């Protein structure tokens, strides 16, 4: 058990917020671990001091007109700005792997089947067939298959688009 998890459990335990079965487990754990028991004692002490401070100082209560919505943390904008790059990097890694897979599927096939999907219309020149990666493994490969990766407008992941040409 991580220290933070244990501390959170102990706080909830002292607050009387644990379910009985979890409470019993925690009590058994504390009985067997003197260090954890000492940690519990320190948390209990902190809670007692906090309670005293809150009760003795009503000025700490926000006035009734105070907006309780929390301002975004300082670190959040930077994190948001990094996320697109992480997504792009992940997408590039996936795209590279998929491109290699597509190349191998195309190069390693001598069949005459339509590849990722059957149907006459799909065999037409320049016909574009969109499939999800999971489907691609179950279809016969095509020697002419090329793959293009596009964005995820419907938020269901990247689209692997097979383009058949001459």
């Amino acid at each position, binding site marked *: 058990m991580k220290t933070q998890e244990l501390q959170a459990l102990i706080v909830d335990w002292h607050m009387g917020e644990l379910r009985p079965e979890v409470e019993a487990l925690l009590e058994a754990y504390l009985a067997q671990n003197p260090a954890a028991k000492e940690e519990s004692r320190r948390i209990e002490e902190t809670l007692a001091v906090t309670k005293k401070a809150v009760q003795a100082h*009503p000025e700490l209560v926000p006035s009734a007109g105070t907006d309780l919505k929390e301002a975004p943390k300082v670190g959040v904008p930077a994190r948001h700005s990094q996320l697109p790059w992480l997504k792009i990097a992940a997408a590039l890694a996936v795209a590279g792997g998929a491109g290699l897979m597509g190349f191998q599927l195309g190069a390693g096939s001598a069949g005459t089947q339509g590849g990722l999907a059957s149907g006459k219309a799909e065999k037409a020149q320049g016909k574009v067939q969109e499939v999800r990666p999971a489907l691609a493994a179950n279809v016969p490969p095509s020697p002419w298959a090329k793959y293009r990766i596009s964005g995820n407008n419907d938020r269901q992941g990247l689209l692997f688009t097979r383009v058949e040409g001459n």
Partner: protein
Amino acid sequence: MESAPHPPLLERLFSESSGDLSRYFTRRHGAGEAVQDLVQETFLQMARSLEDGRNLECARGYLFGIARRISQAAWTQRHKDQNVIPFDPESAESHGEAAVVVLPTDDRVTAARETIAGLSPLQREILDLRFSQDLSYAEIAQVLGIPVGTVRSRLHHAVAEVRQRLSADAADSAPSNP
């Protein structure tokens, strides 16, 4: 003229929570007759909700939710009235609980107070509802209209902040080894 009998739930809530509600309003608006008016208004609205057949899973949380809205309305009304000075427990000598409570001399309580003063209003509100009104996480969540998980995480964070401060103070005051 006889009044209609109160539902058992309302009577139970009144006996269990009217004192807590008085304290809730006193901590926000100062002591005085107005507090009793606010308590009465809270129970009046609660009675209306019960008459409407509202099914309350967490009646105490719902009651304090009403109290919170009434407190906000009273605060707004107070600010609209330019002739009335808003209650300020820090500067007030004769108002409310601040004047009644004997300030503790414990340095740790002072340190905790300073730490809590630096927390967000939401965290301070949660701490008050928990330690002053003795509401559960679920009841606090209902009063504030936020998820229980948010109540829990903000409370844990606040306690961790206080603990960090107390530990730092203890380390500073501990005699250093030669």
